[in-house]
């Protein structure tokens, strides 16, 4: 009879089994063996057996390591300490096998051999080691050109979509910006000094494959200002043989009604297009983003705790995004300075903006209010006028 009858049931079925993977490591790693036991206990008890509690890290850094301890060290001594190491991933999670094999060998030597590819923020997550292994891991990593990612009140490891490397929709070079910002903000990433965490995510187009608008304090989403590039011959090819029902599936789904189709010619009123991507997604061979490309900067997304979930909202409707990205970095500097001074303890930037008012925030970081920043103007009359006349 197996020691782990419940989790064993997750070895069957068509989807890849994480239990099979842990078992494979358990043959040669005592930590993995105890992890199976601890997990079985959770499945039986219907509760977690982990604690946070301890503060661990590598010397000089405040981020990158998450302390984790089990609540049953006597039963499962090999996972009594089971810390996480966040290794900063390469842009858009591209790897050569040499690089991956290096990380595997390192992790075989110093930890459980279990990983997350990848963590929610984007890091290559090494799952489970002890405190004494942390400095050796870090020294080895840094000698081989790798560094730790973020945790705590710092710039979290930026992440991006595969952009120009493998997508025709990319309106700016997401992978380059991700690499550039990660390096620019090394100090802010490793030495937490903010009121709370700050995440950057870069998507090359409004399809937003890295969910930046929902998951990052600063969402940088590619867009364009001029007309959609249209290849009429390719449109005709889609229409021919009913490959695409252009009237219903393209024009009929256009949210702005800016397109029309007379059976042979597709016309787009580009001035009324809101760049939603639907028509381009349906006919990528025929329609492409325009040539005057750049990005939109949106701020403030976060998960529910504390004040409720937020999506990012528009701060800068269009900015050219080319190295060395000075205009963008200058804006970020002003945003951080203001947040540093006015952000309350554990307050994300989105929550601060709601608290002080987006209009005030926009003014404080030196931008002009524009209609693109809102869905609609206020409907309540509670305006705090800052200027009014006094009788002489």
């Amino acid at each position: 009879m197996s020691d782990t009858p419940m989790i064993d049931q997750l070895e069957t079925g068509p989807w890849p089994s994480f239990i099979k993977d842990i078992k494979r490591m358990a043959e040669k790693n005592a930590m993995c063996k105890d992890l199976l036991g601890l997990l079985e206990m959770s499945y039986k008890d219907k509760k977690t057996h982990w604690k946070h509690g301890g503060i661990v890290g590598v010397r000089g850094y405040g981020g990158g390591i998450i302390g984790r301890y089990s609540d049953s060290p006597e039963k499962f001594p090999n996972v009594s300490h089971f810390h996480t190491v966040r290794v900063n991933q390469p842009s858009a999670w591209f790897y050569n096998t040499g690089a991956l094999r290096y990380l595997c060998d390192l992790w075989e030597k110093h930890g459980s051999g279990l990983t997350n590819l990848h963590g929610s923020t984007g890091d290559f997550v090494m799952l489970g080691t002890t405190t004494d292994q942390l400095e050796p891991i870090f020294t080895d990593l840094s000698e081989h050109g790798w560094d730790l990612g973020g945790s705590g009140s710092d710039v979290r490891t930026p992440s991006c979509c595969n952009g120009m490397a493998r997508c025709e929709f990319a309106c700016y070079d997401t992978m380059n910006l991700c690499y550039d910002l990660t390096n620019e903000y090394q100090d802010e990433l490793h030495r937490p000094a903010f009121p709370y965490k700050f995440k950057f995510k870069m998507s090359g187009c409004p399809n937003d494959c890295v969910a930046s608008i929902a998951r990052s304090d600063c969402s940088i989403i590619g867009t364009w200002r001029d007309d959609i590039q249209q290849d009429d011959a390719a449109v005709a090819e889609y229409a021919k043989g009913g490959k695409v029902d252009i009237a219903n599936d393209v024009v009929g789904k256009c949210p702005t009604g800016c397109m029309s189709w007379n059976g042979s010619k597709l016309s787009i009123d580009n001035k009324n297009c809101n760049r939603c991507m639907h028509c381009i997604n349906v006919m990528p061979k025929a329609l492409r983003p325009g040539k005057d490309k750049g990005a939109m900067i949106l701020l403030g997304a976060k998960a529910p705790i504390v004040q409720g979930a937020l999506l990012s909202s528009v701060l800068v409707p269009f900015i050219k995004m080319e190295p060395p990205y000075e205009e963008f970095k200058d804006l970020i500097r002003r945003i951080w300075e203001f947040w540093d001074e006015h952000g309350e303890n554990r307050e994300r930037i989105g929550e601060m903006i709601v608290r002080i008012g987006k209009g005030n925030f926009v003014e404080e970081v030196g931008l002009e209010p524009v209609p693109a920043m809102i869905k609609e103007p206020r409907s309540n009359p509670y305006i705090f006028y800052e200027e009014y006349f006094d009788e002489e």
Partner: protein
Amino acid sequence: MASLEEIKDYLFHKVESYAGKKQVKVPHLTQEIIEHFGEAECSKKDVKEALKELIDEEKLVYGYYGGTTIELPHVEGSANA
């Protein structure tokens, strides 16, 4: 101008005074240090440099309590508690 050593000393004693009483975060500390010396004497950058040295020397360490804190070094936490 306050010297780096002076800022480090004051910063260290400030953290020491909070030990066991308050989880102190960097923005709060920075404001206190600058207030103490005066803006003409001590900038945000100076505090940052002082803190980096204290951390590198392991006189202070980072902590985490739903956000990052600065603390005196301590023995490893609750593993077997």
